[in-house]
């Protein structure tokens, strides 16, 4: 018994007097903000990404590992717009870390810095898993990434003034590269303009708007509700009147509904990485859009 107490005391001591790291602990809820924090923070930040690209961001549990990481985070970078409503408030509440509570400088919501699309006119669960503030999947439009980057760089500088110059200069470098990349992507993506498509889940609103594609229908009868055969048949009827070229889905989604419709309508199913890490090519933010466009362009031939 005595040795257990000693061992515990030693463990506690070791845990509490662990060396004070100069690096800023960033807790990113989704991979795109983790990647952005890496771009802007470099060696000045240590980034933990709570979810991966193969997980459905709507259905995450407040796992013990997340609480442990939130406990020592200096900054939470979330999407907001209720994307993380099911787990982040609980994680923050259980972490005992008042720095990262909503409203504090240590809590950053990307959706606050962009104009949200598709704010539902009717707020009712009968409409499916609707997001009251608007569609939270803002990472589909690289211009949104620009806006978030500028705000995030400012926030990093605010909570870590010692490294403010690092964040400013890294932001400047990133912003120049990113703007050049957007110009290049927009040139490359010209053939996608006006292309009619199907989406599995309404998660590509921003990407579609940016590229000027035309979303004819979604395979989910309501957002977040699993596609059914009867509903897919309706979609099939719709696209016989309004032909589409491709059906797109995110890497984390099941291929069944897309395959079903693709076989019957003779269209190409396309898996998009959706976020950083969704496939091997999308290893950072630049790779995400390079790969997304490459896959779309290849699919429309």
């Amino acid at each position, binding site marked *: 018994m005595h040795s257990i107490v000693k061992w515990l005391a030693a463990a506690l001591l070791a845990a509490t007097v662990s060396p004070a790291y100069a690096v800023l602990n960033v807790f990113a809820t989704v991979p795109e903000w983790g990647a952005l924090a890496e771009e802007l923070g470099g060696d000045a930040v240590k980034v933990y990404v709570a979810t991966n690209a193969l997980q459905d961001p709507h259905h995450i549990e407040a796992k*013990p590992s997340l609480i442990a990481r939130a406990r020592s985070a200096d900054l939470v970078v979330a999407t907001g717009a209720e994307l993380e409503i099911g787990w982040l408030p609980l994680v923050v509440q259980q972490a005992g870390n008042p720095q990262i509570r909503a409203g504090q400088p240590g809590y950053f919501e990307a959706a606050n810095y962009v104009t949200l699309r598709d704010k539902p006119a009717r707020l009712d669960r009968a409409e499916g898993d609707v997001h009251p503030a608007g569609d939270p999947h803002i990472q589909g439009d690289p211009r949104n990434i620009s806006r978030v980057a500028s705000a995030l760089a400012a926030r990093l500088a605010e909570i870590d003034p010692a490294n403010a110059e690092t964040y400013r200069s890294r932001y400047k470098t990133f912003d120049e590269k990113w703007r050049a990349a957007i110009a290049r992507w927009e040139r490359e993506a010209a053939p996608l303009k006006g292309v009619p498509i199907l989406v599995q889940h309404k998660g590509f609103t921003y990407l579609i708007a940016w590229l000027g594609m035309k979303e004819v229908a979604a395979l989910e009868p309501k957002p977040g509700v699993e596609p059914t055969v009867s509903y897919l048949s309706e979609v099939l009827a719709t696209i016989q009147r309004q032909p589409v070229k491709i059906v797109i889905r995110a890497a984390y989604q099941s291929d069944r509904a897309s395959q079903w419709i693709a076989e019957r309508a003779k269209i190409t199913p396309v898996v998009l990485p959706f976020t950083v890490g969704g496939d091997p090519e999308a290893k950072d933010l630049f790779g995400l859009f390079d790969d997304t466009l490459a896959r779309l362009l290849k699919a429309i031939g």
Partner: protein
Amino acid sequence: MSRQLWASALLASVLVVPSIAAAASDAELAEIREQIKQMKESYETRIRALEDRLKAAETAATSAPAPVAAQAPGPSASTLAAFNPGIAVVLQGNYQSLKQDPAQYGFNNIQIGEEVTPGRRGLGLAESEINFFASVDHLFAGNLTVSLAPDNSVSVEEAYGLVTALPYGVVPKFGRFFSGVGYMNEQHQHAWDFQDAPLAYQAFFGGQFTQDGAQVKWIAPTDTFLEFGAEIGNGDAFPGSPRNSNSAGAWSAFVHAGGDIGASSSWRAGVSYLDTRAVDRIGKLPDTTGNIAQTSFAGKTHTAIADFVWKYAPDGNATRTNFKVQGEYFWQRARGDMTYDSDGAPGLTNTDAYSANQSGWYLQGVWQFMPMWRVGLRYDRLSQGTPEYGTNTAFLATDPFSPQRATMMVDWTPSEFSRFRIQYAQSKTRPDFTDNQFFLQYILTLGAHGAHKF
């Protein structure tokens, strides 16, 4: 009228212009061209300036930090409602077919709380729940869960304040709350994977242990989740009882650890200890006549729990398929006096010393084999140990017997907010008392989005 006149005049002049132009000299024509060119340039400059201003305004609007505030409806309508707490409602009901009379429900040689039963037979409403949650101020958050029982009685299931402003991983809680001991104890009944509580919870906690008191949790600053907790409470709830005393009647301590194994698995495991005191705690035990007799217990109870849960989903994406195993082991030691009361009415009663060391465990697995559909299996077993009844031995059914139960369930979850379940159990809690239990259950959740608790 005059406007129409002017319009016709203008139209006429426009029609006439070409003829005038035709008549004009080349010099005049050049002059007119020059004038038009100048006008065009001037307009283009102005349009460009306007475009620039528009773009600037757009950028300002999109980068403004709080467009949400601008979209909110007028303050007069929303000021009062804006501070309303999040409200969530749970509606439940079921159909139960029980082979044995629920009034005869009891565990051989294990004293259980008087209200522990498998529920009523036939169609019935189950517990409805209303939950309110909001920040109180910059220091506290508050949570109230009211339970509405099918017999129209209202009870406060949880009502607690939470200190949200403390640093260093310290999270205090005070009021009435489900104790943090074990794994399932903190979960509300509608979040369970089976309709009813494991036998160990029924036997040793009367279903679920509630503290009226205070709790402090400390999360260690480590990458692996490590949580230490301690609680003190009045101990009114089973295995304690109200005592009319100024001192605390229950205290507990627990440690939980948890983490991830790769992207696909996560786990949590822990050990807990609970100490309670009771005075005239009403319970029930089968007696020699085969009836359920009323008992009263006064004394101390010590309970220890070891718990674990392991969840698996391919790549951590639980939406399609996932698998979950959980188990808990209970050990309980009771020392005190027990009064035997044949039927709870004035008549034969007998009081003598009582002591028992008893244990129990359950193990369950739930597999979501396709979106929306899950199946689950659970096995329960209790060990009665060697209870010492003193002179009460003469009245009680004391044959050695280990209560056990096997349960299977299938549930359908069309959305995060609704669930329908079929459950079948074979429950042997007394000798020659095998109960075949069949349940149909629905759970509907409406209102504020609930938390996805691990």
